[in-house]
């Protein structure tokens, strides 16, 4: 078996780009070779792991242009003191607005309301509040971490999702305004959303999900779509995606889910829905906890190669 040729065919298959001749060759290889079939499974596992696994930050670090300017001016001793203070101050503000360059990606945060759930407030017990930056959810509240509960991921407070009636999943939801925050660019835009979940009963089938979708309507219009489940939202969305994790027994503590979503030009509202569920009867279920949810426009995603 020619392994390189097989990999070429896999790549074409993944992109749905097999020619009729290549398709015949691919089928012949798979039919005749147990090794090729095993390699097909290996390739599927690799794609799946690579899609969800967050690799360590690369050594490629891109700095904002102001840092480069500061370095250019550094030799000018006469102006050094004032210039350095001025540039340093500016870059601190800049860094707060675009928090991450460490992986070669520039992000601009969207306001989601109550960052880190540190402000104590009563959450509306509905699926979606008809306005942006307002967290809500059935049987959902902001609680202090620690004591009989896990310690919050960051800060002191987090969201608790209580067992939902009738064996349904638990949800906490929020909307964000895309029209007012959209970066000016002629390139396709994406948003990256990250959420943290505390594995309460790892290894027992508990399930955490992060679902996101964009809509052409404003928040008031979007809130009417949610009748029963997230499926209602997906069906009405412009774009949507989601990811779920099932913590294994060893995966205790806070777990992270990150997804990226294409944002078409007509999108005005983003909906983020964080869910959790534990299989089995409701009396055996425990509370679930979530913290530190961020959404950010991906501004520049072209890291220079080392």
């Amino acid at each position, binding site marked *: 078996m020619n*392994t*390189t040729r097989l*990999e*070429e065919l*896999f*790549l074409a*298959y*993944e*992109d*749905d780009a097999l020619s009729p001749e290549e*398709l015949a060759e*691919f*089928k012949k290889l*798979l*039919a005749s070779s*147990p090794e090729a*079939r*095993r390699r*097909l*499974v*290996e*390739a*599927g*596992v*690799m*794609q*799946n*792991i*690579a*899609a969800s*696994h967050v*690799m*360590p930050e*690369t*050594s*490629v670090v891109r700095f904002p242009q102001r840092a480069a300017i500061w370095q250019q001016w550094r030799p000018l001793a006469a102006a050094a003191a004032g210039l350095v203070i001025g540039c340093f101050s500016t870059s601190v503000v800049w860094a707060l607005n675009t928090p991450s360059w460490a992986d*070669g990606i520039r992000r601009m945060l969207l306001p989601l309301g109550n960052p880190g759930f540190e402000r104590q407030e009563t959450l509306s017990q509905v699926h979606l509040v008809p306005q942006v930056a307002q967290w809500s959810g059935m049987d959902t509240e902001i609680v202090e971490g620690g004591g009989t509960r896990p310690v919050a991921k960051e800060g002191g407070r987090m969201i608790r999702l209580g067992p939902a009636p009738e*064996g349904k999943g638990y949800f906490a939801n929020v909307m964000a305004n895309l029209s007012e925050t959209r970066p000016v660019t002629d390139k396709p835009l994406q948003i990256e959303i990250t959420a943290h979940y505390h594995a309460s009963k790892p*290894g*027992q*089938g508990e*399930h955490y999900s992060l679902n996101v979708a964009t809509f052409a309507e404003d928040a008031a219009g979007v809130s009417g779509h949610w009748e029963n489940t997230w499926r209602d939202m*997906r*069906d009405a969305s412009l774009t*949507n*995606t*989601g*990811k*779920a994790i*099932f913590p294994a027994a060893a995966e205790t503590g806070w777990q992270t889910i990150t997804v*990226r979503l294409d944002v078409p030009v007509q999108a005005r509202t983003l909906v983020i829905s964080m869910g959790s*569920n534990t*299989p*089995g*009867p409701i009396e055996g279920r425990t509370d679930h906890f979530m913290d530190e949810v961020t959404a950010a426009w991906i501004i520049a*995603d*072209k*890291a220079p*190669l*080392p």
Partner: protein
Amino acid sequence: MKAESNEPMVPPDDAALDHQVRVFLECRPLIQAHIRTLVRDAALAEDVFQEVWVRFERVTRHGEIVVNVAAWCRAAARLVALEGWRKQSRERPVADSELTALVEQAYEEQDERADFWQDHTAALTQCLDALPARSRDLITRRYHQDLPIAEVAAHLGQSIGSVKTALCRLRLALAECVRKRIELNPT
């Protein structure tokens, strides 16, 4: 979708249902990989997997015993994927039933090797983490961001051919790395 039914005379006990969920979790890397191989679209694969889990959880909650969890999930995934394609009015990417059957055969042959694939997954994670920056970047663009080769090439300012070659080599190197790690740390 109905669970395979060699219906017990009495309702299954909690331990049997717990075991059923545990088997699902053990098979999860293969279930997700099968879906990914089938639909070849990261977002749709995630949707299909979530829906398969919801259906599996439902039958488990209703006390139904699934005799072969992996096969049940593959069948459910095929149905859900078809529904998804139909809903999006998209043409089914795998129009070739012969190829679909070969994909099924490939995964079916691994049904009894859930332990091996768990080791494989752990080793693969280590191998991915150990990649040099350039290779990580390539893998991230291709599989994390789910970009087609042409777009990866455009982002990197390289030709499609050179990106294809680099990906082929990288995937083979990863496979070799996994094999070596499993050999070094047999369970």
